[in-house]
């Protein structure tokens, strides 16, 4: 206790020396290779994508004493100062960037639906066009950066990346913006993709060594690509396209012609995972386009709806696996894959686990991409006629959008969407949220060849047969347990998941509760009603205290034990 007080005094003295700059040193990228307990330095907490924390201060025995430490509401945009508000602690002036004078109006407040970084006691938070530094001890806003947007889809921002003293985030109008973590001042911004070609960018940049991995997306039909930038200068290092460059290149045989391949879509919008020993970055590509008609792109359409492994230094493809060959339902394979070193059929293996949006769970060898296991993880799936010898579901063409309508589960949202899964090495179980919803897909465009992007269909959502947390034993593919997220009405729920060595599984339910479950059984052990949980929780130690950080809409909630 006394030690803490002395520390605080010292820190107060330091801050009086440099009151305008956020304290703390930067983030050494080497630290990212070791699962952190006192920080949350990258999208999934570490490179493995497991979202498993070794912390045990909060555990099954004492989780009932978990209580609110602080709450902080973040206001995006440049708001006019109220009569009583003045710049000062907790209300810093907004730093404004962007390339146009007047930002395009955007509806509503920002929703925190990505990773919040915690480094040296400071939280770095983002929503589209906005970034904040927040004191992790009490939620005080230290700086706020606002990007004046030219437009683009403002559906979400998956978070920031950090390298040394610098932060990076993507904007809906396709800029990569780098900020000084201490002050929030902009260092530079670079173009990610062509705004005029309808790209929009949401991914949390991933820092790996001296690479900054940056993705983008497009809902019309421009090709997806992943880029690596130099985190110091913002210079482009490499660019990997989701489709082969020309006919004759490997993979081009899965397209009928160059035109379809060049308009094949497959954005790169969900952050991936990384194996430092193999030097491979793993992520999932989005769906092919036209999304709902395959007639102009007969074949498997590589590398759309794929899990791909790229060499992080060169951007060259090491291997790929395609969970949804020739997808016709907008089912990106864009979940974050999880890296596990574990046993499979009695042998230790380097594995990659992935619950795909199409409702099938895959186990792959992450060295070679060899397929090991495919199982459905939802009961409602009705779009495949079987599983082929490579473990890939075989699409039933009768379930494509049709004039009279095709009844399909999952909907175009997928059984799961971007919400991150978690893997708990203590239980050996993989956890993912599911929604067994049905839609009718009508084709409304008479000319199949005229379909483009997402158009040409009408999707009629019917009802969900249940939302669940599903625990999968990756060794057998068996469902260990399935917990129904009971609710009185449709909508709500389905947030990402996080596990801890305190034998806890954190997630949000369909009625707006933040819940701690027993990862062995799915039994709820603790909850609080936030009215909605908009991202997966994170956890870290600060001043000897373990925090659970959750987001609900535009607010951050930090929880800790009430001693």
């Amino acid at each position, binding site marked *: 206790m006394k030690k803490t007080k002395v520390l605080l005094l010292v820190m107060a003295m330091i801050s009086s020396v440099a009151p305008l700059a956020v304290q703390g040193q930067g983030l050494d990228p080497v630290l990212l290779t070791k699962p952190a307990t006192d920080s949350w330095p990258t999208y999934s907490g570490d490179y493995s994508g497991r979202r498993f924390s070794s912390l045990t201060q909060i555990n099954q025995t004492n989780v009932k004493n978990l209580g609110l430490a602080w709450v902080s509401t973040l206001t995006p945009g440049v708001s006019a100062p109220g009569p009583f508000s003045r710049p000062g602690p907790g209300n810093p002036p907004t730093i404004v960037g962007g390339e146009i004078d007047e930002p395009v109006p955007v509806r509503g407040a920002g929703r925190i639906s990505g990773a919040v970084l915690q480094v040296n006691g400071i939280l770095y938070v983002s929503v589209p066009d906005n970034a904040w530094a927040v004191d992790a001890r009490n939620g005080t806003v230290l700086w706020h950066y606002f990007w004046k947007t030219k437009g683009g889809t403002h559906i979400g921002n998956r978070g920031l990346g950090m390298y040394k003293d610098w932060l990076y985030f993507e904007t809906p109008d396709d800029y990569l913006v780098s900020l000084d973590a201490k002050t929030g001042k902009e260092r530079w911004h670079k173009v990610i993709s062509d705004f005029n070609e309808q790209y929009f960018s949401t991914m949390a940049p991933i820092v790996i060594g001296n690479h900054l991995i940056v993705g983008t997306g497009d809902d019309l039909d421009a090709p997806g690509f992943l880029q690596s930038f130099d985190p110091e200068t913002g210079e482009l290092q490499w660019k990997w396209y989701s489709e082969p460059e020309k006919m004759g290149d490997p993979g081009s045989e899965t397209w009928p012609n160059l035109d379809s391949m060049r308009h094949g879509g497959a954005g790169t919008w969900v952050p991936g995972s990384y194996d430092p020993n193999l030097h491979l970055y793993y992520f999932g590509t989005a769906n092919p386009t036209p999304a709902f008609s395959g007639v102009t792109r007969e074949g498997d359409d590589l590398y759309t709806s794929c899990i791909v492994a790229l060499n992080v230094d060169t951007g060259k493809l090491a291997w790929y696996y395609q969970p949804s060959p020739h997808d016709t339902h907008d089912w990106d394979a864009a979940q974050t894959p999880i890296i596990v070193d574990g046993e499979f059929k009695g042998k230790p293996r380097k594995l990659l686990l992935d619950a795909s949006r199409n409702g099938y769970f895959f186990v792959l060898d992450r060295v070679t991409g060899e397929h090991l296991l495919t199982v459905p993880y939802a009961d409602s799936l009705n779009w495949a006629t079987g599983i082929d010898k490579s473990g890939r579901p075989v699409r039933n063409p009768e379930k494509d959008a049709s004039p009279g309508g095709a009844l399909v589960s999952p909907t175009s949202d997928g059984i799961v969407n971007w919400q991150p899964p978690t893997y708990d090495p203590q239980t050996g179980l993989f956890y993912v949220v599911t929604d067994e919803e049905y839609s009718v897909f009508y084709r409304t465009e008479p000319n199949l060849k005229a379909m483009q992007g*997402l158009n040409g269909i009408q999707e009629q959502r019917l009802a969900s047969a249940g939302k669940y947390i599903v625990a999968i034993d990756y060794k057998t593919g068996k469902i260990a347990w399935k917990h129904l997220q009971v609710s009185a009405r449709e909508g709500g729920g389905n947030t990402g998941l996080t596990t801890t060595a305190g034998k806890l599984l954190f997630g949000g339910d369909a009625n707006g509760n933040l819940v701690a479950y027993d990862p062995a059984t799915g039994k709820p052990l603790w909850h609080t009603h936030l009215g909605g949980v908009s991202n997966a929780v994170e956890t870290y130690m600060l001043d000897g205290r373990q925090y659970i950080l959750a987001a609900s809409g535009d607010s951050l909630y930090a929880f800790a034990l009430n001693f």
Partner: protein
Amino acid sequence: MHREKIVLFTLLGLGAAALVAGQPSVSALVQEPGATQEGPPAPAQPPGSPPVRVARPPAYPVRAPADPAVVARGRQIFSANCSFCHGSDARGGEGGPNLVRSELVMNDNAGEMIATVVQNGRPDKGMPKFDLSTEQIASIAMFIHSMPVGGRAATTGTVDPLVGDAKAGEAYFNGAGKCATCHSASGDLAGIGAKYTDVRALQGAMLSGESRGESGVPTKTVTVTLRNGQTVEGKLYQIDDFIVSLMDANGNYHSYPREGAYPKIVIKDPLQPHLDMLRTLKDDDIHNLTAYLVTLK
């Protein structure tokens, strides 16, 4: 595609009925003077003269070119607020319909029709309202109106969703489908083919059991039995692992914590059979049933 449901933070407003935005019917539209949507008026014919072949009105609105700056601004605002659901080319996207070919949009001149929908939203169809000014919506309208209605690759006409066999549908209704267990063609479903002018809407209502999730739905009811044996019944309001709440027949709200085996909860969802049948229903049977229901005028 980037897709996720925007979590609606539903407030616990007990009387909050879903707002249903009024959509003006196309026939009720008032044409502004000089509007060319319906083409030039037919010339008056002198009595007794032979019928004059009247030129057909253009299939799509003929519009004067708009100010490129306004269109550009509208495109930006559209891309930030609308394109996710309606597609970056306004021809349909994640859940939202094609606007370029929408009747309402085709009857719109300069945003006056669109503004009603944008500013009020369409909560019944999942569209939120947008706090955009009339001027901003007008620029969006100019952007949408600047898109060629015909599309980039000869898109023509419409698709008829009525593909089933009514006779086979009737047999399924009374036989294997077991629809007749709860429904009757001369009872609750009498005239349903006339009530719905849109075949897809009729089929959707049939599958989900009439507008699930909208206001006026047959609601779930719940019977809660407390530890002391007392029983409370009403409309289910909330349920999760920790609470159950309901509205009783007198409009009183009751909420109970869920602890172990108590209270005992029995939920009756009148639409459960519809949910269950989604697991097994075949598309051909769906189409045949719809064709049959269409005949129930």
